[in-house]
C-alpha cells in the first residue's frame, strides 16, 4: 500500500531559488544565463532546464526531461546538420556516456572508467583520466559508464569496482574515492551520479548477483556517506499482490510463498534491487524519485517469497535523510526481469479528474509509460503498449516459455525525453522475442544468479521503435519502427526535434510533433548513448557517442561526434 508524506518541505535553498524553479523549460536563443562561469553552482544546476549554453545533468535537468531549450537547430535547418568534430577515445567498447558541458568544456566517460575533458568547440583533448581498476569487478551488462556529475569545481564518477570518485574538474586529478560496496559480491557502478545541495547521489548495479541494493548520498567534498536507503526492505513481503500495475494476473502461488517465507524468513539480504539510473530531484518537495530494478535471482521466485519490496518500483525518499516517502510497485514478485530501469521524469500531468498535478513518468520494460501522482507515488494511468505483448504473465519453465516483451523490454535503461508544450514523452523501445527458463540454485556468493536463463528466439524478427506518448491521456501519438531493437536514449529540443541513435550506426532527427524523419547520419558504430546538446560562442551543437553496445552486441567504436549546422 503506498504511503505518502503530505509534508512538502520548503528548504532554505528552495526559498532562495524557488522563483527560478519552473517546471516548464523556456526556449532560449543562444542566451547565456551564467556568463563564462566555469564553477558549477547549485543555482546553475537548478536552472539547467533553461540553460541554452551548458548541458549540466545526465538527463538535462533535475526533472530529467532531456529537453534542450535552444532552437538554433530546428526542423527547418536540421537537414544541414554536419559533423563539427569527431573525438576518438582510447577505448573501443560500449559507449553509454552522456556528455556534460560546462562553459565550453565537455566531460565524457568510456567503458572501464576513463574520463576525457574536451574543448567542446573543437574536440581537442584537455586531459584524460584513467581509473586504476581493482582486480575484481562483477558487472552486467558490459563495462559501461554513463557519465559524470559536476558540482562547483569537481567531477564525480562511479566505477566498475564499486567506488565513487571525486576529481578536480580542471585537471582530472583524483581528490577522493569511497568504496560503495564489495565488488566480489556483485556490486558495481555504471550509472552517472546526480549532485544536489552538496550531496552526490548514487545507486548500484548487482541485481543479477544477489546484492542488497541501495541509493547513497555522499558528501561532495569528502566522499563521506551521509545516508543509505536500502532498496530491499527488511520486511519485503508487501501486500501479496496478485496483479500487476495494469491489472493482469501474475499467476502467483501465494500459499506456497507464505509457506516458504515461514521456512526461510525474509530474503531481503540477497534480494537484488539495483538502481541503474539517475534519480529525479523535486527541489520544492526536497525529495528524490528513482526506480528500483529486479529481484535476485531474476527468474526464480521460489527462493524469495513475497512482493520483494521495493524491487520493480518507483520509490521516493527525502533528500536530506534518505527516509522513505512513498513507492509504487509495478510487478510484485517479478520472475521475468521486466523491471524498472529507465530514469523517472518529473512533469505536471493531468489526473483522472482533468486537473494538472505534479507527476512522475517512467518508461517500463513492459512497454508501458506509467504516469504517477508525485505526492504519493500512486499510479494515475499507464499508456497503450508501445511494443507487442503476448502470453503475459506465463510462468517460466525449465524448457522455456515464450512471452513478449523479452527481458530487455520495452524500454531498457534508455532515458526518455519530454516536450511539455506538446504534452508528449518519447521512448525508444526493443522488440526481442524471448523464452523464459527457470532453474533453481542457491545463492552463489557473488556469481551470476539468474535462477534460469533468458533466450532470444533467433528465428523471430527483432526490431525497435521510437514512440511518442501523450502522457495526459496515455495514447500513442506517433510511432516510428527501426531496423533493430533500440537502446541508448533520446533528446528533445526546442527546435521541434528529437534525436536518437540505432545499433546499425544511424543517428537520426525526427520532427517531435509528427515523427517525420528529417535527418540522418551514419556514425560507423552503434549509436547507443543518450544524445546531448550545448552551445559555444553562439553556435548550437548536438553531440552523441558512437561506441556500440555490449548488451545487444552492436558494433563497437570509440567516437564522440559533435554536429552543428554549417554556415
Amino acid at each position, binding site marked *: 500500500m503506498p504511503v505518502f508524506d503530505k509534508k512538502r518541505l520548503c528548504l532554505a535553498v528552495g526559498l532562495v531559488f524557488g522563483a527560478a524553479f519552473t517546471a516548464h523549460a523556456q526556449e532560449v536563443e543562444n542566451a547565456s544565463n551564467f556568463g563564462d562561469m566555469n564553477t558549477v553552482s547549485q543555482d546553475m544546476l537548478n536552472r539547467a532546464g533553461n540553460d541554452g549554453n551548458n548541458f549540466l545533468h545526465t538527463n538535462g535537468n533535475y526533472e530529467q526531461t532531456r529537453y534542450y531549450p535552444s532552437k538554433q537547430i530546428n526542423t527547418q535547418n536540421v537537414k544541414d546538420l554536419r559533423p563539427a568534430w569527431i573525438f576518438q577515445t582510447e577505448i573501443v567498447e560500449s559507449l553509454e556516456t552522456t556528455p556534460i558541458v560546462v562553459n565550453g568544456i565537455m566531460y565524457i566517460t568510456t567503458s572501464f572508467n576513463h574520463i576525457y575533458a574536451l574543448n567542446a568547440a573543437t574536440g581537442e583533448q584537455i586531459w584524460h583520466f584513467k581509473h586504476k581498476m581493482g582486480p575484481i569487478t562483477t558487472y*552486467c551488462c*558490459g563495462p559501461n559508464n554513463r557519465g559524470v556529475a559536476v558540482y562547483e569545481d569537481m567531477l564525480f564518477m562511479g566505477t566498475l569496482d564499486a567506488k565513487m570518485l571525486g576529481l578536480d574538474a580542471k585537471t582530472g586529478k583524483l581528490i577522493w574515492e569511497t568504496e560503495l560496496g564489495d565488488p566480489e559480491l556483485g556490486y558495481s557502478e555504471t550509472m552517472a551520479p546526480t549532485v544536489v545541495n552538496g550531496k552526490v547521489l548514487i545507486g548500484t548495479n548487482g541485481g543479477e548477483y544477489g546484492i542488497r541494493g541501495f541509493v547513497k548520498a555522499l558528501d561532495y567534498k569528502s566522499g563521506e556517506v551521509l545516508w543509505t536507503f536500502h532498496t530491499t526492505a527488511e520486511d519485503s513481503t508487501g501486500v501479496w499482490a496478485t496483479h500487476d500495475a495494469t491489472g493482469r494476473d501474475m499467476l502467483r502461488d501465494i500459499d506456497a510463498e507464505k509457506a516458504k517465507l515461514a521456512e526461510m524468513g525474509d530474503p531481503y539480504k540477497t534480494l537484488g534491487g539495483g538502481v541503474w539510473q539517475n534519480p529525479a530531484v523535486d527541489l520544492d518537495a526536497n525529495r528524490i524519485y528513482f526506480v528500483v530494478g529486479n529481484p535476485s535471482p531474476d527468474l526464480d521466485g521460489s527462493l524469495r517469497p513475497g512482493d520483494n519490496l521495493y524491487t520493480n518500483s518507483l520509490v521516493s525518499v527525502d533528500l536530506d535523510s534518505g527516509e522513505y516517502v512513498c513507492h509504487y510497485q509495478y510487478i510484485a514478485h517479478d520472475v521475468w526481469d521486466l523491471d524498472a530501469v529507465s530514469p523517472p521524469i518529473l512533469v505536471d500531468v493531468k489526473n483522472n479528474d482533468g486537473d494538472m498535478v505534479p507527476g512522475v513518468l517512467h518508461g517500463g520494460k513492459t512497454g508501458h509509460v506509467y504516469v504517477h501522482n508525485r505526492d504519493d507515488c500512486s499510479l494515475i494511468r499507464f499508456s497503450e503498449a508501445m511494443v507487442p505483448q503476448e502470453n503475459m504473465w506465463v510462468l517460466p519453465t525449465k524448457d522455456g516459455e515464450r512471452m513478449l516483451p523479452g527481458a530487455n523490454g520495452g524500454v531498457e535503461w534508455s532515458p526518455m525525453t519530454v516536450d511539455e508544450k506538446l504534452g508528449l514523452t518519447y521512448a525508444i523501445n526493443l522488440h526481442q522475442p524471448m523464452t523464459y527458463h527457470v532453474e533453481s*540454485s542457491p545463492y552463489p556468493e557473488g*556469481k551470476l544468479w539468474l535462477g534460469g*536463463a533468458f533466450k532470444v528466439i*533467433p528465428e523471430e524478427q527483432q526490431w525497435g521503435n521510437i514512440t511518442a506518448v501523450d502522457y495526459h491521456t496515455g495514447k500513442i501519438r506517433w510511432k516510428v519502427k527501426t531496423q533493430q531493437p533500440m537502446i541508448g536514449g533520446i533528446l528533445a529540443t526546442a527546435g521541434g526535434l528529437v534525436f536518437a541513435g540505432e545499433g546499425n550506426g544511424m543517428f537520426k532527427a525526427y520532427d517531435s510533433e509528427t515523427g517525420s524523419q528529417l535527418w540522418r547520419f551514419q556514425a560507423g558504430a552503434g549509436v547507443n548513448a543518450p544524445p546531448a546538446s550545448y552551445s559555444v560562442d553562439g553556435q548550437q551543437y548536438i553531440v552523441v557517442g558512437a561506441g556500440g553496445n555490449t548488451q545487444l552486441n552492436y558494433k563497437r567504436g570509440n567516437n564522440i561526434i559533435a554536429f552543428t549546422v554549417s554556415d
Partner: protein
Amino acid sequence: MISFVRLQFVGLAACIFFSTASISSDAVDIKDKLVLCESCHGGEDGMPVNADTPILAGQEYYYLYVQLKDYKAGRRANPIMSGMTAALSKDEMKALAEYYSSMEWTKIQPEIDQELADKGGSALGAGQCSQCHSKYQGDSRVPRLAGQQLPYMLQTMKDFKNKVRLNSPAKGSLMDSFSDEDLAAMANYLSGLQQP
C-alpha cells in the same frame, strides 16, 4: 579416465624434468606448485600439453583464483584439479593466478569447423552471451574465451549442461537450453576468435 592417467603421467614426468619459470611472489613461493601446473598447462610458452587442457597464460586473474577456490571446495569437479588444489592455501592460489594472468595470451591454431563456427554467432546471440562476455576477451571474473582450446571449451560447455560443472549455476541453465550442435557451433566460433 584415459585422459586422467595420461595427465598423471605427464605431471610426474614434469616433476622430474621441467624447470620452473622464475616465479615466486613476494610473500609466497609457488615454484614447486608451478611444476605441476606446467606439466599440463605448459611452461613459459603457455602452450598446454593437450588440446583438452585450457590455456591459462593470459587468462584473467580473478577468474583463475575463483576456479582454484572452486576446485578445492568441490564446486567444480575434476579429478586432477581437485587433487592439485586440495593443499593450496588462498595465498598460493592468488600467486598462481597472478603468475598466469601476467603472461601473454598463448595463440594457438585450432582446427575449426568453419561451417559450424558460422552458426556459432547466432547461438551466442540467442544466449545473449555478450552481456557478460562482451567481445570474449575476458575481464576480471569473466574468462577470456576468444582463442581458447576448442576441445576444452566444448567439454566445459557440456559439463555445464550435464551438471558436472556446478560452479556457475547461471551457465548451467543457459547451456542446458542449447543442443549439442549449438554448443559445438559456439565452441568453434569462440576458439576461432583472436584479438578484436
